[in-house]
């Protein structure tokens, strides 16, 4: 049953980890010039499959063929040499070298035996231009100064350079905003035209339908099936992924709005200027905008993480003195940051410890943690948020992305903040968990919590928010009512300066 024109094929691939069967009997073909989308909930086995393709893991059973030749590579280097690339979702970027060196690591341009920085810069500029990334990223920028989007672009460059036969993208757009996604898709179109086989892993339906020729769905380590894109729809895919129908996202317009909880009054920081906004009790306000528009920087200033140059932040009309996040949190703010692993979770500690972290002071008597109350609290949230974990003692790093995000949410729900700020609450979260998180946010608002959301996913912004604030280059470009169109948001989010001026005042500045 091997397809004659398959560039890459998997037959009967199985892999288990200490008693847990991550993959069983996967058969999959990718043809030349085909974009195969791979979908599935977190924990379905997509990452394991990519690691096997990448040579990070050896399969227990089954075989891989590239252009008819059996492959049994045992390291990422061997996979790379064979023409296989996996573009990682969370790329490893070397902090202290520039973009060019990050891209060409392992094959640095040289003159004689010496590394030639000039040559590397020129080559990087040429490659950026060829890939259509010019203006989005500068070859000389240091790794540590790159925004998440730019880090992703560097990783994509690493993947497409050379002469790849198969490229697998692992959620490449999770940190990209729409214009960058367009650039990436144009690039994928070109790869398709060049006869490269492409595997595209994503949770985003709209993207999958835009780019993929065929869609394969994994569930619990099994291949549920694959469909040509033209013969399927969202509903069927979701059913294949979760094994049940999910209710569509409905906005609840009947919520009662209370008094103003948060007021941001003409706040200026290093990254944003002249921001004024307010959020009422029971209201969901979303901040939309391109990556780098200053959205995360704004909410970090509101919670007290970054210094405010001028202007005031008020809770219930009382100006806050924000020296550290502790001050914001004491004033009743909860904040789930954008980078779950780096900024929110203590990966080596248990689910329980992570849930109780922000509210530990309320669970103590004479500094002694009341273990029973703490256990009840954690177990309660594990149940009510349906966090999939064998026990509350489980280390958080062993959980899937969606469940990790629920742990972060549980941490703040446990504190019962009056204002909850969520930065990219569903990034890297599978559809099932996403729907649950949306329902949770709406329930919180219905109970009177003021919610401020930063999101790059426009359907999410439109579906959830009562008001949408659009940021551009550190300022609020405009406000839109509930249910605004994607076009209206994008129109405000994009700069309208001529293209030549854009390279100077890039909306994609990285902030260290």
């Amino acid at each position, binding site marked *: 049953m091997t397809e004659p024109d398959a560039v890459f094929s998997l037959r009967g691939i199985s892999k288990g980890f200490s008693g847990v069967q991550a993959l069983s009997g996967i058969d999959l073909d990718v043809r030349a010039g085909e974009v195969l989308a791979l979908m599935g909930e977190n924990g379905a086995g997509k990452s394991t499959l990519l690691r096997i393709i990448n040579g990070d893991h050896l399969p227990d059973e089954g075989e891989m063929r590239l252009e008819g030749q059996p492959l049994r590579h045992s390291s990422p280097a061997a996979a790379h040499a064979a023409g296989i690339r996996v573009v990682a979702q969370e790329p490893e970027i070397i902090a202290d070298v520039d973009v060019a060196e990050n891209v060409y690591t392992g094959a640095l341009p040289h003159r004689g035996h010496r590394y030639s920085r000039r040559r590397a810069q020129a080559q990087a500029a040429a490659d950026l231009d060829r890939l259509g990334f010019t203006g989005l990223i500068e070859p000389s920028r240091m790794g540590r100064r790159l925004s998440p989007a730019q880090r992703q672009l560097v990783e994509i460059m690493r993947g497409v350079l050379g002469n790849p036969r198969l490229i697998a993208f692992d959620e490449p757009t999770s940190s990209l905003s729409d214009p960058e996604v367009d650039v990436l898709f144009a690039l994928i179109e070109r790869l398709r035209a060049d006869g490269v086989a492409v595997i595209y892993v994503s949770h985003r339906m709209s993207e999958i339908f835009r780019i993929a020729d065929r869609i394969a769905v994994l569930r619990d380590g099994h291949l549920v099936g694959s469909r040509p894109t033209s013969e399927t729809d969202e509903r069927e895919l979701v059913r294949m992924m979760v094994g049940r129908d999910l209710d569509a996202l409905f906005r609840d317009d009947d919520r009662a709005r209370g008094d103003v909880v948060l007021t941001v009054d003409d706040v200026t920081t290093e990254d944003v200027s002249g921001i004024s906004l307010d959020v009422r009790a029971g209201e969901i306000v979303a901040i939309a905008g391109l990556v780098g528009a200053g959205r995360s920087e704004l909410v970090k200033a509101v919670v007290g993480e970054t210094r405010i140059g001028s202007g005031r932040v008020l809770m219930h009309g009382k100006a806050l003195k924000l020296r550290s*996040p502790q001050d914001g949190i004491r004033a009743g703010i909860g904040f789930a940051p954008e980078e779950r692993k*780096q900024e929110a979770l203590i990966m080596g500690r248990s689910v329980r410890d992570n849930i*109780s972290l922000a509210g530990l002071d309320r669970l103590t008597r004479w500094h*002694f*943690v009341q273990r029973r109350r703490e256990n009840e609290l954690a177990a309660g949230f594990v149940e009510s948020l349906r966090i999939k974990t064998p026990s509350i003692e489980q*280390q958080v790093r062993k959980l899937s992305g969606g469940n990790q995000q629920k742990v972060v949410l549980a941490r703040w729900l446990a504190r019962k903040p009056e204002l909850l700020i969520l930065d990219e609450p569903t990034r890297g979260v599978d559809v099932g968990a996403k729907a649950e998180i949306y329902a949770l946010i709406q329930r919180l608002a219905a109970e009177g919590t003021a919610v401020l959301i930063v999101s790059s996913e426009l359907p999410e912004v439109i579906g959830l928010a009562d008001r949408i604030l659009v940021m551009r280059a550190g300022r609020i470009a405009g406000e839109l009512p509930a249910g605004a169109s994607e076009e209206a948001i994008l129109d405000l989010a994009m700069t309208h300066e001529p293209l030549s001026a854009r390279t100077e005042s890039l909306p994609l500045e990285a902030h260290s």
Partner: protein
Amino acid sequence: MSTDTTIKSGRSADPDGPRATGPSVGRRVIDAVGVQNLSLLFALAVLVAIIGVNYPSFFSVANYQVIGKAVSIIGVLAVMQTLVIILSGLDISVGSAAGVGSVVSAMVFTSTGSNAGLGILAALGVGIVLGLINGCIIVYGRVNPVVATLATLAAYKGVAQLLSDGRAQGYTGSNDLFVFIARGSIIGVPTLIWIFALVAASAHVVLRYTDIGRNIYAIGGNDVAARLAGININRYIVGVYAVTGLVAALAGIMITARTGSGQPVSGSEGLELQAVTAAALGGCALQGGRGAIAGTVLAVVLLGVLDNGITLFGVNPFWQNVARGSLLVIAVVIQQLRNGERRIGMPT
């Protein structure tokens, strides 16, 4: 330790969600003791068996007391080092700080007309100040903890030598309080061992049962996340270093009591490395966030028994250092391999 071991039961993908029933009884015992501690206990048992077979006199209360007294000073320092390492710091100035504490306790004792209480209080006060200096350099001067305390290791040693003019100071050998610390005992257990036990028990309780301890683990595990969860991490870092200075001075007082005079260098030099060795051997990850007092105490005892054995066998005492170093490397290698670390590049 227990969080570490529950993972290894391999039930990470339980689809039924949380369960109240835990693993088997044997598993629970191992969880309670900790795998790391289990291997230390095993090493200790082997060592004791080897020594005991050849020298039955090893099994005597007198010999236990010798070992206990020998490890008590290094023990208190190792316990505090454990806290610092969990916080993902390091304090290598403790040896020098102990020297300052020793000199100050003896000199204040002498100049106040043999007031032992004042001498001890003064030493402890100076210890806190030395620790605060460390903490402030690290937090407000933004200096890497190793570099900062390497600098104060040299500086505090100089302070001790300047204060004492490089000589042993005072004579405390006839003072009741100092004699009680050095040679006294409470219900048959030497005072020095009591001090070690008390410091270890307090540290254990704080780490394990209080929000302070939990926040220390959180800061060591991910300082950004800890700060964004509302923990005042600067206060914790400065606080832990201050207490470490206090305990270093306590070690200095113990040195004064044991030697009968204030010793600027001779009693305290090299203690910092032994303390770090014991903490690492006891299972602290030097990148922070992991470790426990029980492991450190076991490691301290193991090192003490090792030294004792070397003395009993009449081996050239210079082998002590070789044996300590080898033990540390073996322990860390085993620990890393069990974590499934890939052998690529610099270890994290």
